[in-house]
């Protein structure tokens, strides 16, 4: 039950992901993007950052990395694959998840805490949450506005593929202004139809200890651990 944290040149949340995975007792290792085998790994995490500098389009070059063949194979075999932030962008560019992440409506990088509603708790990433639970998790991205055509969006909703949605804190008087980037349907994270490939813009690995301001991301990694224990 070992997790591969994929390191693209320019990844910068790789160490943070590694720290969070190990914090819940998962075995995890960094895997450089030129690797052609993920033998021995039962899950892959594509971390945040600016792969290849993101000068072309976020995630657009990383999909050509040799290691992505293997990530694709893991995904096809039903092993958990998760992309966080830039990792989510890579997964959409690679066609492992539908839609695209466009520039935020405010047209600049935004780093702040947001609130997320958990829409599904039957996934290897969310079993430790309660249905409808509202999480406090930071975002840090310039291109996080989830976009898909109407048909795809409709399909995502019907198949219950939206896993996390931006929402307001429960005590907030207004339900306005909580979507930080203009994502359609307030989408923060989605999963593939099989339920094993997940992408999300917010950073659960930045909210795994109360000293960092929130531990609401911890169940995300605990869920993964539980799921991988079942696999073995």
């Amino acid at each position, binding site marked *: 039950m070992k997790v591969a944290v994929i390191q693209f040149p320019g990844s910068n949340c790789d160490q943070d992901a590694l720290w969070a995975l190990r914090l819940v007792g998962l075995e995890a290792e960094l895997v450089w993007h030129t690797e052609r085998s993920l033998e021995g790994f039962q899950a892959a995490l594509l971390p945040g950052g600016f792969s290849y500098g993101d000068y072309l389009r976020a995630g657009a070059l990383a999909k050509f990395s040799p290691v992505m063949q293997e990530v694709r194979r893991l995904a096809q075999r039903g092993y958990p694959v998760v992309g966080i932030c830039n990792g989510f962008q890579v997964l959409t560019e690679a066609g492992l998840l539908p839609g695209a992440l466009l520039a935020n409506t405010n047209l600049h990088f935004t780093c702040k805490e947001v609130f997320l509603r958990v829409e599904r708790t039957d996934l290897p990433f969310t079993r430790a949450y309660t249905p409808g639970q509202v999480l406090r998790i930071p975002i840090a991205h310039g291109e996080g506005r989830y976009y898909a055509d109407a048909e795809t969006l409709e399909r995502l909703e019907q198949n219950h593929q939206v896993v996390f949605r931006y929402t307001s804190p429960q005590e907030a008087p207004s339900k306005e202004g909580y979507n930080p980037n203009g994502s359609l349907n307030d989408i923060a994270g989605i999963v593939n139809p099989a339920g094993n490939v997940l992408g999300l813009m917010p950073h659960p*690995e930045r909210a795994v200890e109360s000293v960092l301001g929130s531990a609401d991301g911890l169940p995300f990694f605990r869920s993964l651990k539980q799921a991988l224990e079942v696999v073995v």
Partner: protein
Amino acid sequence: MTQETQPPLLQETGIPLDEYQAIVRLLGREPNRLELYLFKVMWSEHCSYKNSRPLLRLLPKEGPAVLQGPGENAGVVEIGEGWAVAFKIESHNHPSAVEPVQGAATGVGGIIRDIVAMGARPIALLNSLRFGRPDHPRTRYLVRGVVEGIAHYGNAIGVPTVGGEVYFHPDYQENPLVNAMCVGLLRVEELKRSRASLGRPVYYVGSKTGRDGIGGAAFASEELSEESESKRPSVQVGDPFLGKLTMELTLEAIRQNLVEGVQDMGAAGLTSSLSELAHKSGLGLELHLDRVPQREAGMNPIELMLSESQERMVLVPRPGQEQALEALAARYGLDAVPVAHTIAEPVFRVIQAGQVVAEVPTAALADCPTYTREGREDPAIARLRAVDLNALPVPSNLQEILPRLLSSPNLCSRAPIYERYDHQVGTNTVLVPGWGDAAILRIKGTQRGLAVKVDANPRYSKLAPRLGAMHALAEAARNVSVVGGRPLAYTDGLNCGNPETPEGYFELSETIRGLAEASRALGLPVVSGNVSLYNEGPNYRIPPTPMVGVVGLLENLEHRAQQGFQQAGDFIVLIGALEGQLGASEYLWVVHGQEAGSPPPLDLAQEARAQAAIRALIEQGWVRTAHDVAEGGLAVALAEMCLPRGLGATLEVRSPARPDAVLFGEAPSRILFSVNQAHLQAAVKLLENHGLPYHILGQVGGSTLTILTPKARLEWPLADLRQAWEAPLREVLP
């Protein structure tokens, strides 16, 4: 000899005749054109500190925790359990004035490389920014560009920007200031210096050399002028992606113990990095220009030697590790080329196509003549300071002043800026921007934390440079103390006017003397720094602006404080006097439109006691909320404590002094904190034991800030204050 009759080479390089004569003496012959350019950049103020070095000797640099003081790429201080912290601040003012995005971005990239060169992993960035009037279109262009540049570089390279400060003042209209500070963490045994042993190959690592940033160090050492726009090619272009790869390669090479010496290739490029490496090692060096990785064909020796292309480092491998280093670089897809080697003869020799194109003693380049000049205070400043403020009318409506102050560009919310910076990557940021007087970073695997803060008050420094500098250090240290950190040492970014004018030299000299005095009194050594002079033009001179970055240690992170009230019912206590001063205050500027009077006096012994007391209160676990009373005085400080969590307060201030001085006047060594009733008596006792004046002002609670004065009841709904406070910068940065 007059300007007209000088040899054309002197006119071309701008080297003064007396320095030219010194160069001829040192060489024993006339220099060739390339050699003269080497001197031009190495003897620039930016590289040589020729106007500031004699003054900088006044600063205390020693301390029990100091592992490396000024003179290397960055200062290093030990923090226990085998860990040390490297930090430095650096200016990128002139580049940012002509090309704000790249100017600021490469300022960040450069300071990161300085930290990496010490063997430290960068864990935090801070910045200190100065702009002109916020309603001026050019100011908006500069603010947006500088913030974008910092975000562009810092976010992508993955080092969190955890703190900073920004100040708007008309004297910076023509000449903005952009100083960036970086803090890195290292194992004591992995400390690296700019050193090489004899006969070692010297590797050029990272990005290729192009025609960008040629002569940047010299450009930074001139006054900005109409022609400055034409110096846009002197501005370097940053590439955080290559910066990230170069950083990881360097840190990995150090971790694998492949290298004996590391040097950043920054200002003055190959010239400075290689000649300094040789000089510090007591050796000479032979550089083969043909081996330098080049981005474009046909670059001549002067261009190659002066290029400030970014994302380049100098690494000296340990014997036998050359191939391991080259293999590591190949993994990152970077050049690693032995462009030079060290030699016994102490000369810097540049070879191209088998010919020696320059040969200069390394000591000659390093030992620039220094200048001690006569300073004289600008009489206009002395007149402003002497203005009698007692005659100032007390406003009839005190109620409306607090929202006005909170919407001042210097006091309003900084969220529109810091939200554009990734302040959490690395998952070490315990206290994020907006939540405390200083940022706190945890050190993974320990109970320890670092508190970091950069600060300077240009109004104080403008009106009284020496006192202003003392305030800058006292306040930065106070900010570190009120979150629970024990200040260890500091770095200083000294931004001043032209040192060749009596006024400019006076302000530089007074600033350094003030810092020296405060350093000694507070027991804080300076371990690194930067001098940016010539921030002056025909019609302006910036206020002396000593940006002081203090790093402090929290031995137990459990005991820390934040700025906002957390618990209704807690008692609110003020350390220090109720009354502040109007001189040089933000209130005087915003409400009365005056910048005059003397900044408040500073009793450094009381300052040290106040800081020790608040640290002790936090250490005891009695205090979890504390805040420095700074610009805007008591009322603004209280509002700043109410806003983070929307928790109000009711207080009574009984003072015979004029009410505007009590509510909005400024004075140092004052700290507000809140404490649970169970610990109130013990806390007060602790303050008495420290010999500190204090006032129990009221209690936390409600949704308003309410202040009862002898003559009035002032009540502000927090929602109104929040609106006033949040709106102004959003207009500049939507």
